[in-house]
């Protein structure tokens, strides 16, 4: 069994970590970021932000980059992404 079980509901998701027993909620931006990083696992943080902005048709503003950094941090804390 995979460590993480993911269930998407439209643009949000819930995730069960079979290792810790914890359940997490992914808001739309975090889910989109997770999907983007999984499709292209070799991207850097800046490249992920760029790809995500394209996916969501948004400009890469400083505020957007900050949100992406926060979302990346939360995904790494959950264990869904590896720390570079």
């Amino acid at each position, binding site marked *: 069994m995979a460590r993480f079980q993911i269930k998407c*509901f439209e643009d949000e*998701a*819930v995730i069960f970590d079979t290792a810790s027993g914890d359940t997490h909620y992914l808001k739309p931006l975090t889910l989109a970021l997770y999907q983007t990083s999984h499709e292209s696992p070799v991207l850097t943080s800046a490249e992920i932000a760029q790809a995500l902005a394209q996916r969501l048709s948004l400009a890469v503003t400083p505020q957007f980059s900050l949100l992406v950094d926060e979302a990346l941090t939360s995904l790494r804390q959950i264990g869904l992404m590896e720390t570079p």
Partner: protein
Amino acid sequence: MKLCQMSPTDFRRQLAGQGVWLRTGPFSLRVQSRLPRVAEGLAELYGQFEVRNPRLTFADFHIEVNPPGVLRRWFRPQVNFSFDGELPFKPLPLDQAYPMLEWGLNWCVSMHAHQYLIIHAAVVEKNGLAAILPAPPGSGKSTLTAGLVLSGWRLLSDELTLIDRKTGWIQPLPRPVSLKNESIPLIRAFSPQAFINRESHDTAKGTVAHMRPPKESVRRQHEPARPGWVIFPKWEAAAATTLTPRSKAQTFMFLAQNAFNYSHLGADGFRVGTTLIEQTECYDFHYSRLDQAIAAFDRLAATMKPSAIT
């Protein structure tokens, strides 16, 4: 045989002696108590429930509700709830003997019935679909539940939503509806025919009383229902009646946090809970008038039939 078919004398003697065997939903209980107010509460509220010979029949839960000792019989009398000979709670004032039985029964189910994912929520059914009503205390959940079941909805439970882990359907547990504080006179006024037992005052929840479950709900207590909606009720003074779609993912998180055994079930709790959310519509519901709230629920039930859900 139903409890109401026992003679009052036999019932009280058996309750005070070997105990009374009762079936409620999928569970069987053996209840023993020497307290007249427990006998009174059971006779008034559980008349339609099946009873059997306690010597010959297995019971899931063995329960006693009795005074703790001789001294406490005279000085600030108290009552203890015991389960299989253990005392899971501190004693309460004697006036709270009947509510303590109900709270203790909730505890027995929520701590032991892991064949279900158990959510702290009321649940009612109409036209074959169940509406799950999770909500924090003070949201008007019990009042709305009482109003709905007095208006043609079937009571599945006012406190514990039992989701069968094999089928995903809701298992009924139609026990008495717990009413608190202002909701007691409100429901008495809403339906003078409804039977509400004596009030217990100064409990941890304020004044509490229990409403007898509708006869039809008890008769159909072995008939599970398909989940249709998860609706978060919120009573607000002067609020318009509104039903607003809400995030399914956030609804799942709330249910997981308010389930009694989600953590215990691990990945299967996640599977059962997400499957439930997948097949239901999720709403926030604001209301101030009970009649309007019931009309809104009736409209919802009329628009969605079980056959419309895949």
